[in-house]
């Protein structure tokens, strides 16, 4: 029920708290028998793994497109680098002083010079066309199913669900010394963002203090969080699971300690979660980890 449920003492404390809340007619007690609406997110964990060589598995169509364009551009660039390497290697071998004692004095070849201007131009055109399509795709945040306003703070995130009036809560990293089995150090948070799978979600991103970076590599989302202005991005998460991100713009002392955790669940589970969350996350300025009635993550092996 809590991530401290390994500790009998703390569990007892939680039960006492739940009982106290129930005495006030609160929902929390009933919740201990309700199934966890975010459980569907625990089956699939999209987290980085050691010795990773490529992007995370695409969690959204946008990331799939980014992945495709990255491969496309990188193969072309590998061709360019390989061509230059082979050409240089051959030149170094063929025209080394021992083999070619008498240097030529050629300094011009108009045809060659035209070719090495024209061919790179053609390569660039081949890159620019799909690349511009991707920019338009990324920019199209119209007609979302829902909007989450994401606010960066020193050093936590605040999520406000525009379609659920009153649902506005904070999300802190689990400190290193409180990490429980199943949680990922430096990535797991106390209150993840919960989102429905298969629906278009718009993020409206801003900051309450300094610049932050809202960066979700497995979903292909990244925008600065800038005080005084809002930027938008969007995603559609393809399958239920847990996705991670991190702050990616230097923001001071704990820049590395404000990760983002997203639980993507089927729409019905999401709707069930909003009701529970609304009942329990009443204070939108919570600045410390709640002793949450929300069921804790039971993540699979953290590093896959």
């Amino acid at each position, binding site marked *: 029920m809590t991530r401290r449920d390994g500790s009998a003492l703390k569990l007892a404390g939680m039960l006492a708290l739940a009982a106290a809340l129930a005495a006030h007619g609160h929902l929390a007690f009933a919740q201990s028998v309700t199934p966890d609406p975010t459980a569907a997110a625990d089956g699939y964990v999209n987290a*980085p793994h050691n*010795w990773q060589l490529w992007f995370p598995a695409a969690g959204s169509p946008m990331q799939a497109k980014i992945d495709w364009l990255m491969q496309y551009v990188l193969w072309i660039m590998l061709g360019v*680098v390989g061509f230059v390497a082979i050409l240089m290697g051959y030149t170094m071998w063929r025209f080394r*002083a021992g083999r070619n004692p008498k*240097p030529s004095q050629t300094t011009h070849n108009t045809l060659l010079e035209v070719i090495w201007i024209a061919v790179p131009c053609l390569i660039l055109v081949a890159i*620019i066309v799909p690349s511009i399509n991707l920019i338009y795709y990324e920019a199209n945040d119209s007609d979302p199913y829902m909007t989450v306003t994401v606010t960066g703070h020193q050093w936590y995130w605040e999520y406000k669900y525009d379609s659920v009036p009153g649902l506005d809560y904070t999300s802190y990293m689990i400190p290193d010394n409180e990490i429980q089995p199943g949680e990922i*150090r430096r990535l797991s948070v106390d209150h993840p963002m919960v989102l429905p799978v298969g629906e278009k979600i718009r993020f409206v991103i801003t900051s309450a203090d300094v610049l932050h970076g809202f960066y979700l590599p497995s979903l292909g989302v990244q925008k600065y969080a800038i005080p005084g202005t809002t930027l938008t991005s969007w995603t559609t998460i393809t399958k239920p699971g847990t996705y991670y991100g991190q702050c990616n713009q230097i923001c001071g002392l704990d820049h590395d300690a404000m990760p983002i955790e997203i639980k993507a669940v089927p729409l019905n589970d999401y709707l069930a979660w909003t009701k529970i969350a609304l009942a329990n996350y009443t204070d939108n300025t919570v600045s410390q980890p709640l002793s949450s009635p929300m069921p804790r993550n039971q993540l699979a092996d953290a590093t896959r």
Partner: protein
Amino acid sequence: MSITADDHALLDHGYHKKSFVARWLMSTNHKDIGTLYITMAFIGACFGGTLSMIMRQQLMYPHNDIITNGDTWNAIITAHGLIMIFWFVMPALIGGMGNWFVPMMIGAPDMAFPRLNNMSFWFLACGFIFVLLGLFLDSGTGAGWTLYPPLDNAQYSPGVATDFSLFSLHLAGISSLLGAINFIATILNMRAPGMTMHKMPLFCWAILVTAFLLLLAIPVLAGAVTMLIMDRNFGTSFFEPSGGGDPVLFQHLFWFFGHPEVYIMILPAFGIISHVVSTFSKKPIFGYLGMAYAMVIIGFVGFVVWAHHMFVSAISTDSRIYFEVATLVIAVPTGIKVFSWIATMWGGSIEFKTPMLWAIGFIFLFVIGGATGVVLANAGLDQELHNDYFLIAHFHYVLSMGAAFAIFAGFYFWIGKMSGHQYPEFWGKVHFWSFFIGVNLTFFPQHFLGLAGMPRRYPDYADAFAGWNYVSSIGSIISGASTLVFFYVLWRVFTSKEVLADNYWGEGATTLEWAVPSPAPHHTFEDVPIIR
């Protein structure tokens, strides 16, 4: 141009009578000032390199405890960036080698404004003191070298450290500006008879374009930094949303300077590489005019691409497209340079002396850094890669391997001309290969970290990033050990008794500095050289 060793002694006569203070603190001689700049660069590289070694040690393992305070970490990354750019690469390439060789190559007796030259150096030296104060005072300047507000405004960075760092940029900026004016005046007005612009060596072209970039970019930095200082200390709100200002404005101003700045760091490197490749291939440079004007085009286009550093900041979709296309265009003149270097080697009689190894290493690694640059120029991909380790790998490939390799190429190429003593060939090659392995091992794995999504400027990271970080840190230890080899090379150079010929590289070295003795006499030419 018939200077002999006897004349050399004659020309030097009287100069060495100057006291240490008069010679080095009040110098108006371009070679002495060049030497001062190179010394500054050496000190800067030692500081900046030590900071990078500390950072790599911290990042060797997750949850490491070398640096436990985030503010300390941020101060170190900020100082590393500032010092490496303003007190290592720029003084080495522009103030150092530019001062030493531009007047010699164009057949001028000295720089146009010798006292300005001296002033320009001492502004930089004072700036170094300030940047160190910015590192050590209070909790240090922790906004990163890009200095984005609001993090470095008075509310989030109280204390004087940030003011010192900002002021150090002013001093470095004034220094660069005066230097740029001096180079432009020298190159446009003081070329020897017959030395038309289109006969001028490519290193001089490179420095000329660089000087124009500095002249146009530095005032913008100065404006942005001044506004930051005003915001911090005098209650203005240029970048304060609460007062009607905008943090994004600073990003535009900073990168309007910052993007030309990257070409300021790499164009002189291009110049050096051209000379080294031509000399050791024993061939004139291929496509000279194309090479010169490619640099002019790179310099020009370099001014209109700045917002590609802001693809995930507040810019419109159409701006993203424009800045992507403009950025990609730079690949074309850069391609001209790379292919012309290879064409210079083609048909040559290539000798793999140490400077040539650095130059070939430069070309190959710069192409890799350029290729990842093309990847990052795609705004759509930058949404995934912005500010992560893929970017770190990219810009260290063009700087730590591009600019630094060119600095070493220039050092090994010219140290005989500057000091009168040759470097030990064997140890030069040991230095090259150990550094080549070290930096590649450091930075290549960072591509993978970036693809996996590791953000930059993190003192601690998720355990999943441990593997490649460990490899990268091993690489940095090898690079550090390689630097010790370089120290040994330096020691050998300065204890050498060998006497060098005027042109110790032989037939391939054709520019004017090879027509004067080694070391070059203080006033270089006794007669005005005539270029046919």
